[in-house]
């Protein structure tokens, strides 16, 4: 097993060392620009990331980070609503945006010759957004439809919303990204405008470009576009740390469905110090051993072996601004209960606590990590997302390789140690979907009268 690693590692090193890449600069106004040259095709990905996400919102205006993301397509002093989309489309490109708990990001994928225009337009809306009541009144309806589609009519989404709301009582991760429907109903364009003025400034943003570009030319363009924007001070951020959980929490969601669904979340450490930390890497390896690939324990033991699970998953994301959780989830097969599935998931954890993990399993994690890195280079968007994502968590793109190296260095003892240390019931929140036959569920009435 371990012998195989040598040629694989050599291959990774050989292909990566060919380029002194990415490149980075910081403009006078504080905006950082990161460029990764990838000359395989005449295209480019351009992204702007703002360090402002749902976790920066206040009670009463949940969802405003995401609403503002929608409003960013509604015109500036220089361009009418929808014009940005039109220019991207005519350049042969596509564009979109996404909001997370930690950040809001905008991107265009375009033929490389269109990059200067994209940078001009993105810089324009960083400073010159025209936010009107009229556009807002239309768009907030769209966002409410989005919430109905993603959450209200999606039982597993409702369970995840309930899970986070129960697990955190002080930390802002308790609020959903899309916002509570009632907050959306009562939001006004001034809430969105205030959000924009508070957080959208060059010193709270960074630009990521990946593609067939010369980094020096991109730096010049950035200075001529983004460089003209004056920065302003940011609002203070409070830590809002979650107090220690004093005991298990359980919540139930009733919604139209056939199979029940179970999600179990333990509070665990996140990655803070890339060099000094060990536990976050061990938790990452634990998640991979349980559910990282088709031969991992959950598929092998719970879906194929004991056949108790219709599906079963394990996830840990330690690269984030807020607080981390280790989440197990799944659906029992017909005839089995959530209680039986919960017991089976706990038994899998216990096996790691008692017996640890095998050298073969660790070797697989390493091979998977290396292969994923090679495969990721087939996609410019995946590379841009990787850079943007790690920066959003407060780390540096230079840490990407370090993280992978650390994961490859995790020992069986370390995996067993985190499994023993963090998975106790006091830090656990369990959310369950209690399925209602659709013919017994009634259409829910809108919470509030329709806006005027």
């Amino acid at each position, binding site marked *: 097993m371990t012998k195989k690693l040598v*040629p*694989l590692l050599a*291959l990774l090193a050989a292909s990566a060392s060919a380029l002194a890449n990415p490149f980075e600069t910081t403009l006078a106004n504080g905006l950082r620009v990161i460029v990764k040259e990838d000359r*395989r095709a*005449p295209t480019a990905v351009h992204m702007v990331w703002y360090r402002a996400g749902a976790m920066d919102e206040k009670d009463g205006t949940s969802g405003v980070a995401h609403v503002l*993301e929608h409003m960013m*397509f509604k015109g500036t002093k220089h361009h009418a*609503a*929808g014009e940005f*989309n039109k220019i991207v*489309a*005519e*350049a*042969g*490109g*596509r564009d*979109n*945006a*996404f*909001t997370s708990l930690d950040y809001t990001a905008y991107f265009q*994928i375009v*033929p490389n010759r269109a990059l200067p225009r994209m940078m001009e337009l993105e810089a324009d809306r960083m400073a010159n957004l025209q936010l009107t009541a009229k556009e807002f009144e239309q768009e907030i*309806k*769209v966002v409410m*439809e*989005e919430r*109905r*589609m993603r959450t*209200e*009519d999606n039982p597993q989404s409702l369970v995840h919303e309930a899970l986070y709301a129960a697990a955190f009582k002080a930390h802002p991760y308790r609020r959903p*990204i*899309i916002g509570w429907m009632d907050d959306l109903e009562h939001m006004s364009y001034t809430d969105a405008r205030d959000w924009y003025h508070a957080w959208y400034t060059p010193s709270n943003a960074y630009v990521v470009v990946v593609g067939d570009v010369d980094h020096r030319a991109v730096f010049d363009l950035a200075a001529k576009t983004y460089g003209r924007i004056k920065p302003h001070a940011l609002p203070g951020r409070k830590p809002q740390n979650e107090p220690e959980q004093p005991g298990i929490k359980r919540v139930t969601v009733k919604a*139209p*469905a*056939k*199979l029940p669904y179970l999600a179990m979340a333990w509070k665990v450490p996140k990655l803070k110090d890339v060099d000094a930390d060990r536990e976050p890497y061990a938790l990452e390896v634990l998640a991979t051993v349980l559910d990282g*690939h*088709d*031969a991992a324990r959950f598929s*092998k033991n719970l879906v*194929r072996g004991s*056949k108790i699970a*219709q599906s079963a998953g394990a996830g840990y994301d330690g690269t984030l601004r807020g607080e981390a959780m280790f989440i197990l989830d799944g659906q029992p*097969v*017909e005839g089995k209960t959530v209680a039986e599935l919960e017991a089976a998931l706990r038994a899998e954890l216990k096996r790691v606590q008692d017996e640890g993990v095998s050298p073969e399993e660790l*070797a*697989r994690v390493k*091979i998977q990590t*290396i*292969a994923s890195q*090679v*495969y990721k*280079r*087939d996609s*410019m968007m995946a590379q841009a997302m990787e850079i943007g994502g790690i920066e959003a968590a407060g780390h540096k793109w230079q840490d990407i390789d370090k993280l992978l190296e650390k994961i490859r260095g995790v020992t069986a003892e370390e995996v067993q140690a985190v499994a023993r240390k963090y998975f106790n019931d006091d830090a656990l929140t369990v959310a369950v979907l209690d399925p209602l036959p*659709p*013919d017994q569920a009634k*259409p*829910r009435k*809108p919470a509030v009268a329709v806006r005027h």
Partner: protein
Amino acid sequence: MKKMLLAVLVLFAAAAHAGPKIEHWVAPSGAKVYFVETHVLPILDVSVDFAAGTVFGPADKTGVAGLTRALLDAGAGDLDEEHISSKLVDLGARMSGSADADRAGMSLRTLSSQAERAAALDLLRTVLAAPTFPESVLTREKARTIAGIREADTRPDSIAAKRFAAAIYPGHAYGASATVESVERIGRDDLVAFHRDNYAAKRAVVSIIGDVSRAEAETIAQRLTEALPAGRPDVTIAPVVMPVRATVKVAHPATQSHIHIGAPAIARTDPDYYALLLGNYVLGGGGFVSRLMQEVREKRGYAYSVYSYFSPRKLEGPFEIGLQTKREQADAAIKVVEEVLGDFLAKGPTEKELAAAKKNLVDGLALRIDSNAKILGYLSAIGFYGLPLTYLDDFPAKIDAVTVEQVKAAFARHVKPEHLVTVIVAAD
């Protein structure tokens, strides 16, 4: 939390000018091979697709095509499913399958280094040619499939998709979805027979892109297909019968109505392909700039997602408009959609709209072939639907040649109001 899910918007395959150099040959086994050589990344992508989609299964056992495909790697040669999955993981390789109405197949991504590549390709060969379809795995997977069907039948989006397919393809395999009963009827013999009949070299397209030479690709293609079963003679698929205009309403407690409007429309090799692709971009395929998006979402806030697409198949694949909207306003939203469609059918796109659509489709070609994974998809489609090898190179000229009148005429031929079916799930 994406602003829009763009992936669903354009199911039309579109491609690029000055495409990659595609090499084509027929392997001694009889399989058609399509190959692009590129050494920039140390990876190899291979897919093997067969005329083995749902249309080739027995009518009373819908689901047999999907189960056959799903169980290929659940035991093959002298390997059981645990051996196959752990071997792949140990090699750092990824194997995945896909099955639709027309085709089914497996694809493999592997590092191109000799030892890994050879072992991964050997696994793919075994899985394709010598699946064992173990009874115990079939029992388990049937139970999971049935549970999945029961679950899907509670969700408004799946109910709407199934009812729409059934309504626009009455009595045709294109409209059939697996049911609890049809899956229960499937036995191991059905999988064995389906594999023996359909997973044959002469029904196969092998697509290869990556870090190997032409000579190596020839060996790979032959090895992957030489041990496949002989297969049966070609069967003709029953022609599509056009539906009669109708509205189907299905009760459901969801907060949003799920609405589909459409009809069977176009076969992949139809010469109207380019005119419909352009017209649909203007109507509802062009993301934020389409007419449906403007009228339904941007002007009225009726929906988060509204789109139209043509999904060409061997025979007439569907044209569909879809949206979800708060149930109280479903009628109002449908009225807007019908007005937009009616106006488009009557007048076609404007010259300006057509020019913008051409710019997007032609200039955007580079984006659609900027990775090995994307090009692999084109190789497979070119092979399976018998498109010219110069398909990617010809694309800009074909697009540029289309006129407003041709778009209008193509829509008149392929989207006829008297055949349009409307399905509304969670209707008031």
